[in-house]
């Protein structure tokens, strides 16, 4: 039953996701509501997925599947996340020429894109609330590190995996060695 639940969860995620980070609100909501991940673990998997090969959605599927039901769970979750590929895309491949200039797809995306912007903004607020706080209080060292990360990304265009690696090292020093 757990496997079926995992599969269905990722079918929903697969069919309503249109690439990259737009999947995060869906993944976050599904994982937390089923108790497969905590809010912290959602942050961790986003970071891990960005540092390893493979698309975010599938990496999340593997992580969540593994945590919920081992290697078989990982496989089942991947198959769920890929379900639009071997159903919808397989059909679209047969009628490829018709799909090539399909206007409807573009029209749908006109509404889906701003919806994703709104939801992803919601996730950012969610993550800010859990990642920069400790026992309900603002944790200043974390806020400062986050601000540095943001400046590196936006101002100096440092790549995402590099920023994540630097933050890991800073974390070891700040929280591990110094004990902030």
């Amino acid at each position: 039953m757990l496997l079926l639940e995992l599969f269905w969860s990722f079918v929903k995620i697969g069919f309503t996701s249109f690439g990259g980070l737009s999947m995060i609100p869906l993944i976050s909501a599904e994982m937390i509501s089923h108790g497969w991940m905590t809010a912290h673990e959602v942050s961790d998997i986003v970071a891990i997925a960005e540092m390893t090969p493979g698309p975010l959605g599938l990496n999340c599927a593997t992580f969540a599947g593994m945590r919920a039901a081992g290697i078989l769970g990982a496989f089942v979750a991947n198959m769920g996340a890929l379900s639009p590929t071997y159903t919808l895309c397989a059909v679209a491949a047969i009628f490829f020429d018709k799909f090539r200039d399909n206007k409807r797809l573009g029209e749908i995306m006109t509404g889906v894109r701003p919806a994703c912007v709104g939801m992803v903004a919601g996730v950012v607020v969610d993550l800010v609330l859990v990642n920069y706080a400790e026992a309900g209080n603002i944790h200043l060292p974390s806020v400062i590190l986050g601000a540095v990360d943001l400046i590196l990304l936006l101002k100096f265009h440092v790549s995402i995996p590099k920023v994540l690696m630097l933050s890991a090292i800073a974390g070891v020093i700040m929280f591990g060695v110094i004990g902030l």
Partner: protein
Amino acid sequence: MLAKLYIQFLKFGAFTFGGGWSIVAQMKEIYVNREKVITDEELLDITSIGRSLPGTMIGNIAMFFGHRMAGFFGGLACMFGMITVPMIVLILITSFYTAFQNNLWVASAMRGVRTAVAPVILSALMGMVKSAFKFPPCYVIALAMFGLYFFLRMSPVWLVIIGAVLGLLMCEWYERRSH
């Protein structure tokens, strides 16, 4: 043929750090420039449709390409090839993560990494914003969806569906108005 497709996509899948565009570049190098089995334009078509259909972009691209080479099973061979390495890597990492989650050094490193996640998503969001607001009502949609997601905790599945319907209505309305 199926084995060849599987192995080729296995290699592609091993080198897709942060986004699927590197795969498209690798496919161009091998299939357009070297083997000449598809044209630049066809690859572009495959990419743009793979991107606009739901699901994982590179999975969809793999399916389209494989289908073109060897039918449905060709598509499956490419899809499975693409996910093999990332899945094995993530299975190993997850095992490691689960085992060492409470180790002081790993926990400290992850705490550091967590502070970067919101900035990472925020910077990606800036990129999305550029193409997201085609018509003025798009701003209202974004704001409404933020509220429905954050305050009312509505399922993103529904919000995406609502967005899709609004997209169709909006385009229809602007089209009629312009006639």
